[in-house]
């Protein structure tokens, strides 16, 4: 008798309209305004420098951003948007899908800057010595995220209590997002991993192959022009030091690059163009042109990119 009563009670409770469940589907979708970007507030979080050194607990200040304008603390989820190998500025204006998700599900968005990037430097100006950079790795970064969630939960900041967390990231942070769900399944209910590079590949030939396949969609002339430009630059750079210097100095800061660094920059300017959706645009410009004109187009495209991060000289000075 008691058992039947319990079962009946269970059924009633499960079947009733859960306000939290309903809220998800009732929220109308409004167009996301710029206010989402403006609403981001930056704060500092006291993070542990070395999560694997149990003898001491040195701290550093890590940046994070909050957007709580859609948040319903009673039922909303918390989106942890993971920043990666760049200076973080919260959710960028061009990447607000997480904001739309937050709006639709009455969620909160938290953005955490990756250690060693932007202003989140574990050792301040001394962060970039070899000795200190041993703490720049994905395992420490994952522990950063875990500690961040734990602290936010325990202080009930922003009204967060037992709200569900979802991790979100793209590219390297995409991999972090996927790994995080595996390593800390009790902290997030799921993860969204966009273009997540979770597999390690040595000698990554498929990468080049894909650039070929993608540019070939516009026609063979496109990949042929890109390929020919690589060889042309290669022959210029290795013909004579003067010719190399002359060509490289057409790019701001370019004269300080070694030939190999410059070739990496050149190939990468093509890669980045294809990778970030510029394939049709550049291929259209290359159509029905002779080789010299095509080279000029590709050179102009390369001029849109900075050489500095390809140069060991500029990175050190």
């Amino acid at each position: 008798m008691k058992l039947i009563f319990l079962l009946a009670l269970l059924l009633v409770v499960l079947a009733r309209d859960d306000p939290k469940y309903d809220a998800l589907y009732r929220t109308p979708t409004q167009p996301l305004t710029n206010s989402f970007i403006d609403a981001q507030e930056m704060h500092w979080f006291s993070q542990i420098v070395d999560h694997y050194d149990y003898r001491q607990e040195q701290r550093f200040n890590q940046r994070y951003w909050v957007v709580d304008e859609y948040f319903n603390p009673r039922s909303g989820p918390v989106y942890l948007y993971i920043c990666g190998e760049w200076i973080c500025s919260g959710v960028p204006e061009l990447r607000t899908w997480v904001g739309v998700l937050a709006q639709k599900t009455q969620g909160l968005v938290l953005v955490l800057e990756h250690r060693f990037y932007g202003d989140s430097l574990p050792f301040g100006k001394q962060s970039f010595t070899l000795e200190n950079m041993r703490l720049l790795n994905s395992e420490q970064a994952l522990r950063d995220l875990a500690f961040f969630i734990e602290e936010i939960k325990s202080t009930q900041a922003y009204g967060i209590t037992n709200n569900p967390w979802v991790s979100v990231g793209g590219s390297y942070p995409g991999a972090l997002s996927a790994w995080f769900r595996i390593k800390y399944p009790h902290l997030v209910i799921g993860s969204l991993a966009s273009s997540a590079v979770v597999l390690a590949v040595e000698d990554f030939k498929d990468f080049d192959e894909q650039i070929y396949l993608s540019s070939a969609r516009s026609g063979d002339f496109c990949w042929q022009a890109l390929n020919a430009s690589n060889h042309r630059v290669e022959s210029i750079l290795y013909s004579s030091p003067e010719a190399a210097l002359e060509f490289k100095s057409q790019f701001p800061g370019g004269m300080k690059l070694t030939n190999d660094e410059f070739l990496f920059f050149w190939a990468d300017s093509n890669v980045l163009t294809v990778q970030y959706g510029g394939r049709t645009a550049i291929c259209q410009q290359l159509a029905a042109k002779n080789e010299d004109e095509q080279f000029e187009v590709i050179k102009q495209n390369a001029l849109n990119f900075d050489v500095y991060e390809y140069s060991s000289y500029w990175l050190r000075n």
Partner: protein
Amino acid sequence: MFTSTAPTGSGTRPSLSNVFAIQRDQKCGAPLVLPVLHLIRLLPDLLRPSSHAFLQTGPRLLQEVLRRCLRGRNLGEGGDQEHGVRRTLRQVHQHHLLQRRRRYASVDIDPWRWASLQHTENRDLVARVIDCPNCAHCVDLYTPEFSDADSLKKARDEQYLTISEWIANYWQEVSRNNLEKLLLQEI
């Protein structure tokens, strides 16, 4: 020129970390002394012009030496590069057994798709390759536009539905747990 078969050339590009490692530590002579037999076996491949790989630049021999040279270097916390690759893959594969509630999205034109997960059978681990013209690396995280490709819109809708489901399931679980606690107290 590029052949339709799999490229035989190395796709390795001198990445920044490699460049650093070389310059910081000039003791890269040792790998140059490759066993002679091994070198002879490699020769036909090494002397091939560099045009075999689409983006590859620089003399092939030099690249090969550089690669071998770097292999023995300590490139990070976990030892040499090969070891690091193996360790990451071991983690990923081990984790595939434990996978739950993850969503992967890749883009068909994106060169990084080959380092991601593109197909799964598991309902708790959804991987989608978004096939859309002029899409980009991480395009699903971009700000939605009316002009987005239908395939992208569909992928985003699916993401939203999946996440909503996770959230709903979570709250159901919470209320079930609360109920259990309540019942236990009563008993």
